[in-house]
């Protein structure tokens, strides 16, 4: 039990360091290279998709845990993973059907939460 807690503590530290570093890189792109935040978000998702295609994102998750699964790049990874799994399972049609296989849950949740928030909360100002 103590070992499990020790492991959990180490994984939290790794998540903090690696997730923080990704956000730091994003801030550098915004402040130093003057890339608009929306473009940085798109870049990050595309980067996640490319790394997933190269087979590098899974080993990255094994090391970084939530440091890899919480940043937006993970969205690119789950989209790619879904397409790849579907391609392998059902061939060419999987290219279209696979996209939302894993990522769909997060999108559905975001729509539901957005709807609830729009009903419950009023914007400030």
């Amino acid at each position, binding site marked *: 039990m103590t070992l499990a807690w020790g492991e959990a503590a180490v994984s939290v530290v790794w998540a903090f360091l690696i997730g923080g570093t990704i956000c*730091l890189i994003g801030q550098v792109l915004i402040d130093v290279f003057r890339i608009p935040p929306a473009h940085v978000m798109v870049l990050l998702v*595309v980067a996640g*998709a490319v790394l997933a295609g190269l087979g590098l994102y899974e080993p990255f998750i094994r090391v970084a845990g939530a440091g890899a699964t919480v940043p937006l790049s993970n969205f690119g990874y789950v989209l790619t993973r879904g397409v790849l799994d579907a391609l392998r399972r059902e061939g060419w049609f999987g290219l279209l059907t696979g996209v939302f296989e894993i990522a769909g849950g997060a999108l559905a949740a975001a729509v539901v939460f957005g709807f609830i928030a729009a009903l419950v909360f009023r914007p*400030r100002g």
Partner: protein
Amino acid sequence: MERGGRFHTKSAELLAQVTWEVAGLPDPEEERKRQAAEFAALAAQYHPHPPLARNLIFAFLVGGSICAIGQLFIALFQSLGMTDVQASARASITLLALGSLLTGLGVYDEIGRVGGAGAAIPITGFANSIVSPAMEYRTEGLVFGFAARLFSIAGPVVTFGILAAMASALIRFLVTG
């Protein structure tokens, strides 16, 4: 302004330059460039310099903290007997819910002001980018306000994510099967 019409543009320009020189006046083109450079130098003085080091440190701390909280949720769900993939998916949904709630309460805007990219890049920022316009445009109606604007910020992310994912997965599939 069209100098010299369709023909002899070059020679007309040259003539204009010589004329200005003879008249002892600065070439208006050169003068315009000089003034533009002067203005740019002056504007740079008054342009607010974002405290770069501070921004970077807070992006790191805020983004890192959100990821650390995500890892805590993963550990919690794992201790309930879920697999790594299940636990990480549940943790992501939990963070989406938290990000939505904090956006609704107006707290996430404050986190974003301090954290910058550290607040925008984690999945809580994705929730914020959907909930925020949903609330803001609610008054313009459920269809053209709420529903039409829901993905106004997240839409590009989803669109390019899908296109990149299809290309990336297809190449991988063709190369390694």
